[in-house]
Protein backbone atom coordinates (compact mmCIF):
# COMPACT_ATOMS: atom_id res chain seq x y z
CA UNK A 1 0.00 0.00 0.00
CA UNK A 2 2.78 2.43 0.93
CA UNK A 3 4.68 1.86 -2.34
CA UNK A 4 1.48 2.27 -4.38
CA UNK A 5 0.74 5.52 -2.52
CA UNK A 6 3.79 7.15 -4.11
CA UNK A 7 3.17 5.85 -7.65
CA UNK A 8 1.36 7.81 -10.36
CA UNK A 9 1.00 11.04 -8.40
CA UNK A 10 -2.13 13.16 -8.65
CA UNK A 11 -1.88 16.53 -10.42
CA UNK A 12 -0.16 19.03 -8.10
CA UNK A 13 -2.93 21.65 -8.37
CA UNK A 14 -5.43 19.06 -7.09
CA UNK A 15 -3.04 17.53 -4.55
CA UNK A 16 -2.26 20.95 -3.03
CA UNK A 17 -5.96 21.49 -2.29
CA UNK A 18 -6.27 18.01 -0.78
CA UNK A 19 -3.21 18.52 1.44
CA UNK A 20 -4.50 21.87 2.71
CA UNK A 21 -7.90 20.34 3.42
CA UNK A 22 -6.32 17.45 5.33
CA UNK A 23 -4.09 19.83 7.29
CA UNK A 24 -7.26 21.64 8.30
CA UNK A 25 -9.15 18.43 9.16
CA UNK A 26 -6.37 16.45 10.82
CA UNK A 27 -4.01 19.03 12.34
CA UNK A 28 -5.89 22.30 12.90
CA UNK A 29 -9.04 20.37 13.82
CA UNK A 30 -7.17 18.51 16.56
CA UNK A 31 -5.63 21.55 18.25
CA UNK A 32 -8.64 22.28 20.47
CA UNK A 33 -8.87 18.85 22.09
CA UNK A 34 -5.08 18.55 22.32
CA UNK A 35 -4.81 21.97 24.01
CA UNK A 36 -7.60 21.14 26.47
CA UNK A 37 -6.24 17.73 27.44
CA UNK A 38 -2.61 18.87 27.61
CA UNK A 39 -3.33 21.82 29.88
CA UNK A 40 -5.35 19.83 32.40
CA UNK A 41 -3.26 16.66 32.36
CA UNK A 42 -0.15 18.86 32.88
CA UNK A 43 -1.96 20.25 35.91
CA UNK A 44 -2.86 16.81 37.23
CA UNK A 45 0.73 15.56 36.82
CA UNK A 46 1.93 18.55 38.85
CA UNK A 47 -0.64 18.08 41.61
CA UNK A 48 0.07 14.36 41.95
CA UNK A 49 3.83 14.94 41.98
CA UNK A 50 3.50 17.67 44.59
CA UNK A 51 1.20 15.58 46.80
CA UNK A 52 3.60 12.62 46.70
CA UNK A 53 6.60 14.65 47.78
CA UNK A 54 6.27 14.80 51.53
CA UNK A 55 9.96 14.76 52.43
CA UNK A 56 11.05 18.31 53.39
CA UNK A 57 14.58 17.56 52.15
CA UNK A 58 13.36 17.28 48.58
CA UNK A 59 13.48 20.73 46.97
CA UNK A 60 10.20 22.28 45.85
CA UNK A 61 11.49 22.91 42.34
CA UNK A 62 11.36 19.14 41.74
CA UNK A 63 7.65 19.52 40.95
CA UNK A 64 8.47 21.58 37.85
CA UNK A 65 11.27 19.21 36.90
CA UNK A 66 9.03 16.10 37.17
CA UNK A 67 6.23 17.75 35.24
CA UNK A 68 8.56 18.78 32.42
CA UNK A 69 10.07 15.29 32.16
CA UNK A 70 6.68 13.54 32.23
CA UNK A 71 5.13 15.87 29.70
CA UNK A 72 8.02 16.01 27.23
CA UNK A 73 9.12 12.38 27.40
CA UNK A 74 5.82 10.53 27.58
CA UNK A 75 2.62 12.47 27.95
CA UNK A 76 2.84 14.72 24.88
CA UNK A 77 4.25 12.31 22.30
CA UNK A 78 2.64 9.05 23.43
CA UNK A 79 -0.53 9.83 25.36
CA UNK A 80 -1.62 12.50 22.87
CA UNK A 81 -0.88 10.10 19.99
CA UNK A 82 -3.25 7.53 21.51
CA UNK A 83 -5.94 10.22 21.74
CA UNK A 84 -5.25 11.30 18.16
CA UNK A 85 -5.48 7.63 17.07
CA UNK A 86 -9.05 7.77 18.39
CA UNK A 87 -9.93 11.13 16.89
CA UNK A 88 -7.98 11.37 13.64
CA UNK A 89 -7.52 7.62 13.08
CA UNK A 90 -11.22 6.81 13.28
CA UNK A 91 -11.99 9.85 11.09
CA UNK A 92 -9.57 8.59 8.43
CA UNK A 93 -10.87 5.01 8.54
CA UNK A 94 -14.52 5.97 8.50
CA UNK A 95 -14.19 8.60 5.76
CA UNK A 96 -12.16 6.33 3.44
CA UNK A 97 -14.30 3.31 4.42
CA UNK A 98 -17.49 5.18 3.57
CA UNK A 99 -15.99 6.09 0.21
CA UNK A 100 -15.29 2.38 -0.35
CA UNK A 101 -18.84 1.35 0.64
CA UNK A 102 -20.47 4.00 -1.56
CA UNK A 103 -18.27 3.07 -4.56
CA UNK A 104 -16.52 6.47 -4.56
CA UNK A 105 -13.14 4.71 -4.55
CA UNK A 106 -14.29 2.56 -7.48
CA UNK A 107 -15.29 5.79 -9.24
CA UNK A 108 -11.75 7.15 -8.74
CA UNK A 109 -10.19 3.93 -10.02
CA UNK A 110 -12.47 3.77 -13.05
CA UNK A 111 -11.34 7.27 -13.95
CA UNK A 112 -7.74 6.03 -13.92
CA UNK A 113 -6.82 7.84 -10.72
CA UNK A 114 -4.43 6.23 -8.25
CA UNK A 115 -6.92 6.18 -5.38
CA UNK A 116 -4.25 5.45 -2.75
CA UNK A 117 -2.23 8.46 -3.85
CA UNK A 118 -5.33 10.64 -4.07
CA UNK A 119 -6.73 9.64 -0.66
CA UNK A 120 -3.82 8.60 1.56
CA UNK A 121 -0.85 10.68 0.38
CA UNK A 122 -2.39 14.05 1.42
CA UNK A 123 -3.11 12.62 4.88
CA UNK A 124 0.45 11.34 5.10
CA UNK A 125 1.85 14.79 4.22
CA UNK A 126 -0.62 16.58 6.52
CA UNK A 127 0.43 14.37 9.43
CA UNK A 128 4.07 15.29 8.88
CA UNK A 129 2.98 18.50 10.67
CA UNK A 130 2.01 16.39 13.67
CA UNK A 131 5.16 17.40 15.63
CA UNK A 132 3.69 20.92 15.60
CA UNK A 133 0.65 19.58 17.52
CA UNK A 134 2.92 17.76 19.95
CA UNK A 135 5.06 20.85 20.56
CA UNK A 136 1.86 22.72 21.49
CA UNK A 137 0.92 19.82 23.78
CA UNK A 138 4.34 20.01 25.45
CA UNK A 139 4.10 23.75 25.96
CA UNK A 140 0.53 23.69 27.29
CA UNK A 141 1.26 20.69 29.52
CA UNK A 142 4.06 22.59 31.22
CA UNK A 143 1.92 25.75 31.42
CA UNK A 144 -0.99 23.73 32.86
CA UNK A 145 1.40 22.31 35.45
CA UNK A 146 2.57 25.81 36.32
CA UNK A 147 -0.99 27.05 36.78
CA UNK A 148 -1.90 24.10 39.00
CA UNK A 149 1.32 24.42 40.98
CA UNK A 150 1.10 28.16 41.63
CA UNK A 151 -2.67 28.49 42.09
CA UNK A 152 -2.84 25.23 44.08
CA UNK A 153 -0.19 26.59 46.45
CA UNK A 154 2.21 23.66 45.99
CA UNK A 155 5.24 25.85 45.29
CA UNK A 156 6.14 29.30 44.03
CA UNK A 157 6.30 30.35 40.38
CA UNK A 158 10.07 30.83 40.73
CA UNK A 159 10.53 27.29 42.11
CA UNK A 160 8.43 25.81 39.30
CA UNK A 161 10.36 27.68 36.60
CA UNK A 162 13.66 26.68 38.22
CA UNK A 163 12.49 23.06 38.14
CA UNK A 164 11.47 23.28 34.49
CA UNK A 165 14.97 24.62 33.65
CA UNK A 166 16.89 22.14 35.80
CA UNK A 167 19.04 19.47 34.13
CA UNK A 168 17.51 20.11 30.74
CA UNK A 169 18.80 17.64 28.15
CA UNK A 170 18.12 18.84 24.59
CA UNK A 171 18.23 15.26 23.27
CA UNK A 172 15.01 14.54 25.15
CA UNK A 173 13.24 16.95 22.80
CA UNK A 174 14.84 15.19 19.81
CA UNK A 175 13.78 11.82 21.27
CA UNK A 176 10.21 13.05 21.67
CA UNK A 177 10.07 14.34 18.10
CA UNK A 178 11.60 11.17 16.64
CA UNK A 179 8.80 9.25 18.37
CA UNK A 180 6.28 11.78 17.12
CA UNK A 181 7.34 11.38 13.49
CA UNK A 182 7.11 7.58 13.77
CA UNK A 183 3.67 7.84 15.39
CA UNK A 184 2.55 10.28 12.68
CA UNK A 185 3.48 7.65 10.09
CA UNK A 186 1.40 5.06 11.99
CA UNK A 187 -1.52 7.49 12.36
CA UNK A 188 -1.59 8.09 8.60
CA UNK A 189 -1.09 4.55 7.35
CA UNK A 190 -2.87 2.10 9.69
CA UNK A 191 -6.30 3.85 9.66
CA UNK A 192 -6.00 4.41 5.90
CA UNK A 193 -5.25 0.72 5.38
CA UNK A 194 -8.31 -0.38 7.37
CA UNK A 195 -10.54 2.12 5.53
CA UNK A 196 -9.20 1.49 2.05
CA UNK A 197 -9.30 -2.30 2.11
CA UNK A 198 -12.54 -2.75 4.06
CA UNK A 199 -15.42 -4.76 2.64
CA UNK A 200 -19.11 -4.65 3.50
CA UNK A 201 -21.50 -1.92 4.54
CA UNK A 202 -22.10 0.70 7.21
CA UNK A 203 -21.68 -1.78 10.09
CA UNK A 204 -18.27 -2.82 8.74
CA UNK A 205 -17.20 0.85 8.56
CA UNK A 206 -17.80 1.07 12.32
CA UNK A 207 -15.95 -2.18 12.94
CA UNK A 208 -13.03 -1.06 10.75
CA UNK A 209 -12.78 2.21 12.71
CA UNK A 210 -12.63 0.32 16.00
CA UNK A 211 -10.08 -2.18 14.69
CA UNK A 212 -7.90 0.57 13.26
CA UNK A 213 -7.94 2.41 16.60
CA UNK A 214 -6.97 -0.76 18.48
CA UNK A 215 -4.09 -1.60 16.11
CA UNK A 216 -2.83 1.98 15.88
CA UNK A 217 -2.75 2.15 19.71
CA UNK A 218 -1.02 -1.22 19.99
CA UNK A 219 1.61 -0.21 17.43
CA UNK A 220 2.16 3.16 19.16
CA UNK A 221 2.70 1.49 22.52
CA UNK A 222 5.00 -1.19 21.06
CA UNK A 223 7.10 1.26 19.06
CA UNK A 224 7.21 3.60 22.04
CA UNK A 225 8.85 0.82 24.02
CA UNK A 226 11.26 -0.12 21.24
CA UNK A 227 12.26 3.49 20.47
CA UNK A 228 12.73 4.31 24.14
CA UNK A 229 14.94 1.27 24.56
CA UNK A 230 16.94 2.21 21.47
CA UNK A 231 17.30 5.95 22.07
CA UNK A 232 17.47 6.40 25.83
CA UNK A 233 19.01 3.28 27.30
Amino acid at each position, binding site marked *: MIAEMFR*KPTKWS*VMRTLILKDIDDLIIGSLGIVAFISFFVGGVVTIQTALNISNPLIPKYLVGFATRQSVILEFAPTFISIIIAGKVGSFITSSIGTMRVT*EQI*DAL*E*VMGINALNYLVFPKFIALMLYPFVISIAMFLGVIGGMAACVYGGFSTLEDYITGVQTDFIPFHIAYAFIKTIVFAFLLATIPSFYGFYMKGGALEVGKASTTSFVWTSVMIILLNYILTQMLLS
Partner: protein
Amino acid sequence: MIEVNNIEKSFGDAHILKGISTTFEKGKTSLVIGQSGSGKTVFLKCLLGLFTPESGTISYDGKIYAQLSDDEKRNLRAKMGMVFQGSALFDSMTIAENVMFPLRMFTKQSKSEMEDRVNFVLNRVNLPDAHHKMPSEASGGMQKRVAIARAIVNKPKYLFCDEPNSGLDPKTAMVIDNLIQEITDEYNIITVINSHDMNSVMEIGEKIVFLKDGIKAWEGSKETIFKTDNEVVTDFVYSSELFKKVRKMYIEENE
Protein backbone atom coordinates in the same frame (compact mmCIF):
# COMPACT_ATOMS: atom_id res chain seq x y z
CA MET B 1 -15.49 -1.94 -30.26
CA ILE B 2 -15.22 -3.88 -27.00
CA GLU B 3 -14.61 -7.58 -27.53
CA VAL B 4 -15.08 -9.97 -24.63
CA ASN B 5 -13.59 -13.37 -25.28
CA ASN B 6 -14.41 -16.32 -23.03
CA ILE B 7 -13.81 -14.60 -19.66
CA GLU B 8 -13.99 -16.49 -16.38
CA LYS B 9 -14.02 -15.03 -12.88
CA SER B 10 -14.23 -16.70 -9.47
CA PHE B 11 -14.17 -15.52 -5.88
CA GLY B 12 -12.92 -18.39 -3.75
CA ASP B 13 -15.14 -21.37 -4.53
CA ALA B 14 -17.82 -19.23 -6.17
CA HIS B 15 -17.47 -19.44 -9.96
CA ILE B 16 -19.21 -16.21 -11.03
CA LEU B 17 -18.47 -15.79 -14.76
CA LYS B 18 -18.23 -18.98 -16.81
CA GLY B 19 -16.76 -18.28 -20.21
CA ILE B 20 -18.64 -15.23 -21.46
CA SER B 21 -17.97 -13.92 -24.98
CA THR B 22 -19.66 -10.99 -26.67
CA THR B 23 -19.00 -7.68 -28.42
CA PHE B 24 -20.22 -4.14 -27.81
CA GLU B 25 -20.30 -1.78 -30.78
CA LYS B 26 -19.83 1.93 -31.20
CA GLY B 27 -22.97 4.07 -31.25
CA LYS B 28 -25.11 1.33 -29.74
CA THR B 29 -26.78 1.08 -26.35
CA SER B 30 -26.15 -2.45 -25.09
CA LEU B 31 -27.89 -3.92 -22.07
CA VAL B 32 -26.65 -6.74 -19.90
CA ILE B 33 -29.66 -8.26 -18.17
CA GLY B 34 -30.24 -11.12 -15.79
CA GLN B 35 -31.49 -11.97 -12.33
CA SER B 36 -29.79 -10.68 -9.22
CA GLY B 37 -26.68 -12.81 -8.65
CA SER B 38 -26.33 -13.74 -12.31
CA GLY B 39 -22.92 -12.02 -12.52
CA LYS B 40 -23.89 -8.73 -14.20
CA THR B 41 -21.99 -6.46 -11.82
CA VAL B 42 -18.90 -8.68 -11.81
CA PHE B 43 -19.03 -8.69 -15.62
CA LEU B 44 -19.27 -4.89 -15.72
CA LYS B 45 -16.42 -4.52 -13.22
CA CYS B 46 -14.30 -6.82 -15.43
CA LEU B 47 -15.06 -4.51 -18.38
CA LEU B 48 -14.01 -1.54 -16.25
CA GLY B 49 -10.77 -3.22 -15.23
CA LEU B 50 -11.74 -3.23 -11.55
CA PHE B 51 -11.69 -7.06 -11.54
CA THR B 52 -9.20 -9.14 -13.49
CA PRO B 53 -10.64 -12.25 -15.16
CA GLU B 54 -8.74 -15.50 -14.47
CA SER B 55 -8.92 -16.45 -18.12
CA GLY B 56 -10.13 -14.96 -21.37
CA THR B 57 -9.51 -11.48 -22.76
CA ILE B 58 -11.23 -8.13 -23.00
CA SER B 59 -10.04 -5.83 -25.76
CA TYR B 60 -10.83 -2.20 -26.41
CA ASP B 61 -10.54 -1.19 -30.07
CA GLY B 62 -8.23 -4.12 -30.67
CA LYS B 63 -5.99 -3.64 -27.60
CA ILE B 64 -6.14 -6.43 -25.03
CA TYR B 65 -6.59 -4.80 -21.60
CA ALA B 66 -4.49 -7.34 -19.69
CA GLN B 67 -1.51 -6.71 -21.98
CA LEU B 68 -1.48 -2.93 -21.46
CA SER B 69 1.08 -1.26 -19.19
CA ASP B 70 -0.19 0.43 -16.01
CA ASP B 71 0.05 3.84 -17.68
CA GLU B 72 -1.83 2.61 -20.75
CA LYS B 73 -4.51 1.13 -18.50
CA ARG B 74 -4.91 4.44 -16.66
CA ASN B 75 -5.06 6.34 -19.95
CA LEU B 76 -7.72 3.94 -21.21
CA ARG B 77 -9.71 4.33 -18.01
CA ALA B 78 -9.61 8.10 -18.42
CA LYS B 79 -11.65 7.50 -21.60
CA MET B 80 -14.31 5.57 -19.68
CA GLY B 81 -17.34 7.11 -18.05
CA MET B 82 -19.15 5.18 -15.36
CA VAL B 83 -22.53 5.68 -13.73
CA PHE B 84 -22.62 3.65 -10.54
CA GLN B 85 -25.74 2.09 -9.08
CA GLY B 86 -25.57 4.41 -6.07
CA SER B 87 -24.28 7.32 -8.20
CA ALA B 88 -20.95 7.36 -6.23
CA LEU B 89 -20.81 11.16 -6.18
CA PHE B 90 -18.04 12.58 -4.00
CA ASP B 91 -19.99 13.76 -1.00
CA SER B 92 -17.42 16.37 0.06
CA MET B 93 -17.87 18.24 -3.25
CA THR B 94 -20.72 20.28 -4.70
CA ILE B 95 -22.51 19.00 -7.79
CA ALA B 96 -20.52 21.36 -10.03
CA GLU B 97 -17.23 20.23 -8.41
CA ASN B 98 -18.23 16.59 -8.92
CA VAL B 99 -18.86 17.18 -12.61
CA MET B 100 -15.70 19.26 -12.99
CA PHE B 101 -13.56 16.61 -11.26
CA PRO B 102 -12.52 14.60 -14.38
CA LEU B 103 -11.63 17.85 -16.16
CA ARG B 104 -9.45 18.98 -13.24
CA MET B 105 -7.71 15.61 -13.15
CA PHE B 106 -7.14 14.96 -16.84
CA THR B 107 -7.16 18.22 -18.77
CA LYS B 108 -5.18 21.44 -18.78
CA GLN B 109 -8.22 23.61 -19.40
CA SER B 110 -8.51 26.99 -17.72
CA LYS B 111 -11.07 27.41 -14.95
CA SER B 112 -13.45 29.33 -17.22
CA GLU B 113 -13.23 26.61 -19.91
CA MET B 114 -13.99 23.96 -17.31
CA GLU B 115 -16.91 25.99 -15.96
CA ASP B 116 -18.30 26.38 -19.49
CA ARG B 117 -18.10 22.64 -20.05
CA VAL B 118 -19.73 21.91 -16.66
CA ASN B 119 -22.55 24.35 -17.47
CA PHE B 120 -23.00 22.66 -20.83
CA VAL B 121 -23.26 19.10 -19.48
CA LEU B 122 -25.43 20.11 -16.51
CA ASN B 123 -27.79 21.79 -18.99
CA ARG B 124 -27.61 18.65 -21.13
CA VAL B 125 -28.88 16.53 -18.22
CA ASN B 126 -31.51 19.16 -17.35
CA LEU B 127 -29.88 20.39 -14.15
CA PRO B 128 -29.08 24.01 -15.02
CA ASP B 129 -29.47 25.32 -11.44
CA ALA B 130 -27.94 22.55 -9.35
CA HIS B 131 -24.31 23.74 -9.35
CA HIS B 132 -23.99 24.69 -5.71
CA LYS B 133 -26.02 21.88 -4.17
CA MET B 134 -24.29 19.10 -2.27
CA PRO B 135 -25.04 15.52 -3.44
CA SER B 136 -26.89 14.86 -0.16
CA GLU B 137 -29.32 17.68 -1.05
CA ALA B 138 -30.18 16.13 -4.42
CA SER B 139 -32.93 13.55 -5.07
CA GLY B 140 -32.10 10.07 -6.40
CA GLY B 141 -32.99 11.07 -9.96
CA MET B 142 -30.90 14.23 -9.74
CA GLN B 143 -27.95 12.26 -8.38
CA LYS B 144 -28.19 9.85 -11.32
CA ARG B 145 -28.24 12.77 -13.76
CA VAL B 146 -25.23 14.35 -12.05
CA ALA B 147 -23.44 10.97 -12.29
CA ILE B 148 -24.24 10.89 -16.03
CA ALA B 149 -22.99 14.48 -16.39
CA ARG B 150 -19.74 13.55 -14.61
CA ALA B 151 -19.37 10.45 -16.79
CA ILE B 152 -19.70 12.38 -20.07
CA VAL B 153 -17.97 15.66 -19.15
CA ASN B 154 -14.59 14.51 -20.47
CA LYS B 155 -16.10 13.14 -23.70
CA PRO B 156 -15.57 9.42 -23.00
CA LYS B 157 -15.32 6.71 -25.66
CA TYR B 158 -17.01 4.15 -23.42
CA LEU B 159 -19.95 4.71 -21.08
CA PHE B 160 -20.86 2.07 -18.48
CA CYS B 161 -23.94 2.23 -16.28
CA ASP B 162 -24.71 -0.13 -13.41
CA GLU B 163 -28.48 -0.26 -12.92
CA PRO B 164 -29.00 3.45 -13.60
CA ASN B 165 -32.75 3.14 -12.91
CA SER B 166 -32.66 1.35 -9.58
CA GLY B 167 -34.69 3.15 -6.93
CA LEU B 168 -36.24 5.60 -9.39
CA ASP B 169 -39.92 6.11 -10.21
CA PRO B 170 -40.97 4.91 -13.71
CA LYS B 171 -41.12 8.42 -15.18
CA THR B 172 -37.68 9.44 -13.90
CA ALA B 173 -36.34 6.05 -14.99
CA MET B 174 -37.58 6.73 -18.52
CA VAL B 175 -35.95 10.17 -18.50
CA ILE B 176 -32.64 8.57 -17.51
CA ASP B 177 -32.99 5.85 -20.19
CA ASN B 178 -33.72 8.38 -22.90
CA LEU B 179 -30.87 10.59 -21.75
CA ILE B 180 -28.39 7.71 -21.96
CA GLN B 181 -29.68 6.74 -25.40
CA GLU B 182 -29.45 10.33 -26.67
CA ILE B 183 -25.92 10.74 -25.31
CA THR B 184 -24.85 7.45 -26.96
CA ASP B 185 -26.15 8.66 -30.33
CA GLU B 186 -24.86 12.22 -29.90
CA TYR B 187 -21.29 11.26 -28.93
CA ASN B 188 -21.22 8.02 -30.96
CA ILE B 189 -19.85 6.06 -27.99
CA ILE B 190 -20.05 2.48 -26.75
CA THR B 191 -22.61 2.28 -23.96
CA VAL B 192 -23.04 -0.80 -21.79
CA ILE B 193 -25.82 -0.82 -19.20
CA ASN B 194 -26.45 -3.38 -16.47
CA SER B 195 -30.15 -3.60 -15.80
CA HIS B 196 -33.04 -5.75 -14.76
CA ASP B 197 -35.57 -3.08 -15.64
CA MET B 198 -37.68 -4.52 -18.47
CA ASN B 199 -38.87 -1.05 -19.51
CA SER B 200 -35.24 -0.16 -20.28
CA VAL B 201 -34.86 -3.40 -22.25
CA MET B 202 -37.89 -2.59 -24.41
CA GLU B 203 -37.02 1.10 -24.81
CA ILE B 204 -33.29 1.31 -25.45
CA GLY B 205 -31.89 -2.23 -25.81
CA GLU B 206 -30.22 -2.06 -29.21
CA LYS B 207 -28.22 -5.06 -28.08
CA ILE B 208 -29.17 -7.30 -25.18
CA VAL B 209 -26.96 -9.87 -23.46
CA PHE B 210 -28.80 -12.16 -21.05
CA LEU B 211 -26.76 -13.73 -18.25
CA LYS B 212 -27.89 -16.63 -16.11
CA ASP B 213 -25.71 -18.14 -13.40
CA GLY B 214 -22.59 -16.62 -14.96
CA ILE B 215 -23.29 -17.97 -18.46
CA LYS B 216 -24.40 -15.97 -21.50
CA ALA B 217 -27.77 -17.61 -22.01
CA TRP B 218 -28.97 -15.44 -24.90
CA GLU B 219 -28.00 -12.47 -27.03
CA GLY B 220 -30.20 -10.31 -29.26
CA SER B 221 -31.97 -6.97 -29.47
CA LYS B 222 -35.21 -5.37 -28.26
CA GLU B 223 -36.86 -6.58 -31.46
CA THR B 224 -35.70 -10.19 -31.25
CA ILE B 225 -36.38 -10.56 -27.54
CA PHE B 226 -40.12 -10.50 -28.33
CA LYS B 227 -39.78 -13.41 -30.71
CA THR B 228 -37.35 -15.64 -28.89
CA ASP B 229 -38.43 -19.08 -27.75
CA ASN B 230 -35.52 -19.38 -25.35
CA GLU B 231 -37.29 -20.47 -22.17
CA VAL B 232 -34.68 -19.04 -19.84
CA VAL B 233 -35.19 -15.60 -21.37
CA THR B 234 -38.97 -15.75 -21.59
CA ASP B 235 -39.22 -16.96 -17.97
CA PHE B 236 -37.24 -13.91 -16.86
CA VAL B 237 -38.44 -11.20 -19.24
CA TYR B 238 -42.09 -12.18 -19.38
CA SER B 239 -42.51 -13.16 -15.76
CA SER B 240 -45.20 -10.50 -15.24
CA GLU B 241 -48.66 -10.67 -16.78
CA LEU B 242 -48.21 -7.18 -18.21
CA PHE B 243 -45.14 -8.13 -20.23
CA LYS B 244 -46.80 -11.37 -21.37
CA LYS B 245 -49.60 -9.24 -22.83
CA VAL B 246 -47.13 -6.77 -24.35
CA ARG B 247 -45.31 -9.63 -26.03
CA LYS B 248 -48.55 -11.15 -27.33
CA MET B 249 -49.64 -7.78 -28.77
CA TYR B 250 -46.22 -7.22 -30.37
CA ILE B 251 -46.26 -10.65 -32.03
CA GLU B 252 -49.87 -10.18 -33.25
CA GLU B 253 -49.06 -6.73 -34.66
CA ASN B 254 -46.01 -7.98 -36.50
CA GLU B 255 -47.59 -11.12 -37.98
